[in-house]
């Protein structure tokens, strides 16, 4: 009475090669339809969306297709008095949008145009005595926010402003029986959370807390017969997990534990030949989020037509080489 494995079948007519230019066009045109229903309804994700789009363009070498000063002006308008950034003008500040803002400014080498002291002060104020981070003043705790805080500070070169030991202690307390990580102590393991925790530990230089063989096994078991990766056991494959699982495997030195060719096949099949862009699964609607993680995944898998991506911060490697950020890899 065994249950069959949850998976998809790649349609035989699915794309088999990378439609590089189409993706650039997709991102550019997405940003132009500002009155579109779709666009307006995702306002709560605007800052993240811009980071996904701009990084996608940077990875395919077309960042120049966007208006730099327009973007920076928008980002500046989103910095609130407290120092944090909101997702869009008029909205409340949050760590999730703050990391995207700092990443966008780094892409444009424009970090100095905002009040970085205020950002640092605000991030510092969100750390709790147990080392965890609130996402904003309302008190939601999540290891995603630990990653956002540490990544922001690393990008600003101010990691020593928070209690890194305590932050690490909290993240480690979210490790589970399978060697993977969840949102909070006691929460079930999830690949997205694994990426945040492993990335955070890499930036903090404490990857030794990870049992790489155990976690690597859990991660490589995310690969399904279709070649795609899921986020948790017995779930469907999804392009965004090709990033979270893959980046985590790269950081802990176990990228070779999955079948790269099959995964490349899956990611390519998630492209939309008409519009450009990637969807979560073949045949679904595309969006900038899956477009970035599709491209970044292909880059980690060795596709040299996409620029090399940094597995911890999901940004072009050449850009970060200029910074003094220390990344630990196993």
């Amino acid at each position, binding site marked *: 009475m065994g249950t*069959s494995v949850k998976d998809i079948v790649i349609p035989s007519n699915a794309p088999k090669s990378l439609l590089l230019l189409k993706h650039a066009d997709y991102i550019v045109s997405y940003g132009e339809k500002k009155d579109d229903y779709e666009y307006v*309804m995702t306002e709560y994700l605007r800052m993240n969306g811009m980071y996904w789009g701009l990084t996608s363009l940077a990875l395919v070498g077309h960042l120049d297709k966007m208006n730099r000063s327009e973007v920076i002006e928008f980002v500046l308008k989103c910095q609130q008095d407290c120092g944090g950034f909101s997702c869009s003008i008029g909205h409340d500040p949050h760590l999730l949008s703050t990391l995207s803002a700092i990443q966008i400014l780094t892409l444009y080498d424009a970090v100095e145009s905002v009040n970085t002291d205020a950002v640092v002060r605000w991030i510092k104020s969100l750390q709790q005595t147990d080392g965890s981070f609130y996402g904003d003043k309302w008190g939601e705790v999540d290891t995603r926010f630990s990653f956002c805080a540490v990544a922001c500070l690393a990008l600003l070169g101010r990691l020593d402003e928070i209690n890194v030991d305590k932050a690490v202690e909290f993240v480690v307390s979210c490790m589970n029986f*399978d060697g993977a990580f969840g949102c909070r102590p006691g929460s079930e393991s999830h690949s997205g959370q694994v990426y945040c925790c492993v990335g955070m530990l890499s930036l903090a230089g404490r990857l030794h807390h990870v049992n790489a063989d155990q976690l690597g096994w859990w991660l490589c078991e995310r*690969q399904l017969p279709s070649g795609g990766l899921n986020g948790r056991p017995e779930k469907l494959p999804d392009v965004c997990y090709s990033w979270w699982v893959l980046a985590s495997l790269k950081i802990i030195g176990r990228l*070779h534990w*999955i079948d790269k060719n099959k995964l490349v096949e899956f990611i390519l099949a998630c492209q939309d030949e008409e519009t450009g862009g990637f969807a*979560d699964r073949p045949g679904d609607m595309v969006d900038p989020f899956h477009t970035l993680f599709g491209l970044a995944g292909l880059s980690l898998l060795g596709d040299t037509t996409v620029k090399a991506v940094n597995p911890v911060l999901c940004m072009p490697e050449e850009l970060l080489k200029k910074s003094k950020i220390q990344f630990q890899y196993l």
Partner: protein
Amino acid sequence: MHGRLKVKSTEEQIEAKKKEREKKLLLYNGAMSKIFLKKQNGELDQEMLLLSGEVLVVNPDVYTLWNFRKETFLELSTCLPGEQLQRLYQSELYFLEACLKKNPKSYGSWHHRCFVMDHMPDPDWKRELELCNQFLQLDERNFHCWDYRRFVVHSAKIPPEEEFEFSLRLINNNFSNYSSWHYRSKLLPILFPDATQPMGVSEDALLKEYELVQNGFFTDPDDQSNWFYHRWLMGRGNQTLNINCFYVSREDNCVLVSFTKHIQIGKKTDLILECNEQTMPGTVWLNPNKTSQSSCLWISFYNVFVWCNAQIVRQISIRIIKIIIIIIIIMFICSKRFCNDLNWQYRADNLTFPKDCDLKVTLVQGSLELCSSSLHLGENDSSLSGSSVISMDKSIFSQEMSPLKKDTLLQAMESVLQLMEMESDNKWTVLTVVLLMKALDPDSYFDQIMCYLDKLEDLDGKRIHYYKDLRSKFIIENIFAGTELTNASAITLSGRSLTKMYHTELLPLVTSLDLCDNLLRDVHEFNLLQNVKVLNLANNKLENCEGLQHLPKLERLLLNGNNLTKSSDLLQLTTCAKLNFLDISNNPLSCQEEEIQTITALLPNVSICFKQQ
């Protein structure tokens, strides 16, 4: 963004959808501008709840609106009487339930529910637990709901026994329930604590769990939930902190201490070196990378200043020594950032250790002694090692398995073998048998383990390199278990198809390591080989030398027949001061004139073989 199928629609459908969306857009924009205007005017009232509610029920991810609602509630709670407030919160819970039914995976809705429960005058926690049951019935893997359940259980002080029962109900309903198994892994140490067991769970409880999960994989042998839980149950938990090896060298004037776990010396933990019961001052501990980041190997360094002046220092009074030490500490702190660049060598100077002495290292945390090791260094001992773990305990290699008694493991193996007979293509059974054999008797089962690993590579081609690395680990552990690592100066692991090197932390004393004719892809953690003089890595698959930096004694390095493509792949070797022979023939880089010139300039004191004679 997830699971939205792209459907081909007719012109008419597209037109109709466009019209509908335009209408929705108008409503949305209208509501949003009203809400923001009200917020600007500080109107945190019931109308704010009404307006924001209209948007949130459609789009619960607009987190700012949840914040506005929270602010409104905090505002209203200052002016409304308790009863009315309770009713208002109550209706907020109904509203949230409607939102969650539409979108059960919205972070914002679930967190807002926590806020409401934390703030309402008279919260009904039992009802919340019922709500969790409902939502988990709809989707037993909804991790938002599981997290909310943990919040409710914590706040309502629900006894863990009841939760344990609840998870059992879910599992009996459907074994394929990773979330429930996960929940049990958290409840077991609370319900059945046993500090003497490596996982902190009593053996009885583990055995019962084992039976339960065995029912699971007999019912559905392809479901990975059961197998992940099973592997955890058979595990041995974490390694305890101890000293692997304590090594003192008179000729190098250095002390090496290798631990069973990574530690960080400096902040809270300190490593104290005593000579004849006197603490030796000025000892600075660094890891093999010459930093103070976590490592399982720590090396003593003395400030250069002390070394150069050691003879003079002895003749000056103690008081001056103290002052000097303070200066040294300041100098060290100042020079810390240069540690990476300064290629410090062990000093050849025999002033540090007296002719005949008792040496002891102790790892302390505050006033707490964590572990220690000591040895007697005689006048004629040039170097000496004391080790507590390395050669004694073969079980360090079966740390992944298992606290259970041997007959339990045998029984487990029998039932899994039985299942394997029925399900000959099931990889989980084969892997489990491999792990059980490794735990029971890695030596006598060795050939069988290797056969099963072959089978796994056939059955599960996607993870072929996982199995190859696992095989390498087993081979290395088997060889090391049969070797006196404390005395072995030369170790040969050539021609064994190793894809990954394991346990370099156990080889701080080895002077010659032969790993030629394998399939190694990297040399990570090779700089734990602090005494290695000859390292043969010929004919592997190396693409860089990351891990070979700061090997103070390395003289001969064979890297011929690898995949090194550019001179920068060899950059790490510039930090190996004693390197005098390097073979890099038969690498992609060794036929490029430009690279050859760069490498020659990079390593001026090394005789380099570029082409095989």
